[in-house]
């Protein structure tokens, strides 16, 4: 009962942190054909579930996210990755909605993943962990919803890989989603994105400390490879305009270039910092598995090349959002989703938010983005009969 800000926030959010073993430990059938179990899912809930259980919002995290969407991260101490969006009185108002955010299967923050202990061997799974897909992640989340006794999520929301999960939710479980917000995402992962993922994986696997994936047993950590993977990926989250605005060619703590390979430029030291802080909180094998899950994401491919088939007759209301400077998940990817939804006669709203902050914009305080989400949720809540508590804020 100490009065640290984290605990205050936790109380204000009515935060619950828990881990559940799905299906009583029975194995889950995966896309790969493997069945895997027991599956643990670590999750947070914020807010209160209303009496008719109609106000649940499932929040899906991106590649390196986790269930700490609002509460400070236990390793870094930084605010939750979507704390600008979710909280009391915020866009996703925890005074109105019951927010559920779980760590994906394959992750490293408490859900079953390559770092989890294999009950058969008593050792971490490492590369014995099965390859999982976005659909497998969503399967686990649906079972979590079952566990929480909720038939239908009011909304499923997520950006980037989180947005892929949103699309998968809506396509595979349309009756369990009232509205869906796929943000800065795609229905078919591009060759360029697969290429970037491969650079990251090769960086990890080229680190001798990766030890063929068995670094946990060898007491090592391929932090150099993982940091390089993160640095390369981080560039793809930004935009040239954002990098120029933030760093330009500014030198790091010096007046002139050093004619060497120390970090002369601010942008270099920024990336090194991004890499080095990331390795403290993320597992290298998880990075391999989750990037692979994204590589395999191809919704039109699963529907004879026609994305519209995935959504034919869907009752789900969609709000698709993209960011103008996002070149990792460019607006045309979102337009392809919108086009398919229109062809499927789905109810769809779409906004391209003007921003120079690149893909990262979905995590940042972008007023136009927040206004769109707020407005859409308000309209949908009215339709669903969820009382908006904080009118006129």
């Amino acid at each position, binding site marked *: 009962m100490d009065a640290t800000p984290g605990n205050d926030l936790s109380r204000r959010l009515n935060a619950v942190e828990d881990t559940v073993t799905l299906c009583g430990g029975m194995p889950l059938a995966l896309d790969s054909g493997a069945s895997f179990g027991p599956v643990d899912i670590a999750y947070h809930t914020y807010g209160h579930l209303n009496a008719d259980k109609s106000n649940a919002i499932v929040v899906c995290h991106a590649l390196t996210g986790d269930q700490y969407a609002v509460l400070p991260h236990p390793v870094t101490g930084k605010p939750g990755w979507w704390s600008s969006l979710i909280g009391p009185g915020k866009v996703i108002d925890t005074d109105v909605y019951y927010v559920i955010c779980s760590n994906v299967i394959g992750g490293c923050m408490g859900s079953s993943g390559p770092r989890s202990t294999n009950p058969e061997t008593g050792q971490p799974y490492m590369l014995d962990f099965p390859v999982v897909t976005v659909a497998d992640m969503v399967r686990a989340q649906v079972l979590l919803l079952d566990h929480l006794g909720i038939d239908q999520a009011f909304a499923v929301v997520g950006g980037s890989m989180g947005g892929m999960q949103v699309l998968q939710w809506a396509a595979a479980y349309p009756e369990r989603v009232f509205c869906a917000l796929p943000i800065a995402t795609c229905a078919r992962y591009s060759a360029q994105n697969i290429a970037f993922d491969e650079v990251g994986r090769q960086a990890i696997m080229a680190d001798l400390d990766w030890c063929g994936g068995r670094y946990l047993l060898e007491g090592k950590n391929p932090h150099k490879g993982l940091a390089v993977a993160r640095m390369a990926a981080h560039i793809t989250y930004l935009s040239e305009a954002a990098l120029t605005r933030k760093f330009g060619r500014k030198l790091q703590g010096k007046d002139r270039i050093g004619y060497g390979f120390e970090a002369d430029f601010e942008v270099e030291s920024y990336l090194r910092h991004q890499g080095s802080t990331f390795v403290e909180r993320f597992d290298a094998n998880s990075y391999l598995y989750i990037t692979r899950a994204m590589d395999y994401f191809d919704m039109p491919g699963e529907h004879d090349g026609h994305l519209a088939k995935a959504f034919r007759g869907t009752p789900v*209301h969609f*709000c*698709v959002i993209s960011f103008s400077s996002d070149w990792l998940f460019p607006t045309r990817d979102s337009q392809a989703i*919108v*086009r398919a939804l*229109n*062809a499927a*006669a789905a*109810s*769809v*709203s*779409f*906004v*391209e*938010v*003007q921003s120079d902050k690149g893909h990262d914009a979905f995590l940042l305080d972008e007023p*136009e983005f927040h*206004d*769109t989400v*707020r*407005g*859409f949720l*308000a*309209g*949908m809540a*009215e*339709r669903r009969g969820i009382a908006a508590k904080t009118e006129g804020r």
Partner: protein
Amino acid sequence: MAAAPNHSATGIRIDLKIIAEMIDDGSRVLDVGCGEGELLAYLQEHRGIDGRGMELSMQGVQRAVAKGLAVIQGDADADLVDYPDDAFDYVILSKTLQATRNPRAVVEQMLRIGRHAIVSFPNFAHWRTRLDLALHGRMPVNELLPYSWYETPNIHFCTVRDFIELCRELGVRVKTSLSLDAAGEVQRFTADSRWANLFGVDAVFLLEK
């Protein structure tokens, strides 16, 4: 806004009310250039339609989305091609035709994706416009046509007769045509009469394939 003279008793703009009266209850409607979704919201509430909207300005889209409407950011020239054939009972283009790059293609697209198209536009052959041009030799700028030629979004003005001719070329049937005065009230003559081309400020056409 609600007290402005060109609003009907129900609070909706008169030109939109006129369009609303052309639409059957419970139909599927696409409003192209829907602004903040005033017409769609009205039709959804009072007529039980299944509505969709398209709007270019982000502010318009946001405000429409905030009303719970299904509105996407897009424009008539580029994005109508994405809809399947016969997806709607009515496709509406209200006071936007003259701002499109290819009005003919837009009308064709509207009637491909909808059974009906409802098009309203300002009549460039209105007597005041003619008089302005005749007397001053300058592009008309008045309360009906408020932009100077170099900044107007209205790049493809047409007259009522021009539009009727386009419908003929496209083989489109004019089901209803209305001529409106400056207050937005329906005039006694229909838009396909000679009077409309001289005295009509705006025209509204209900077209059918």
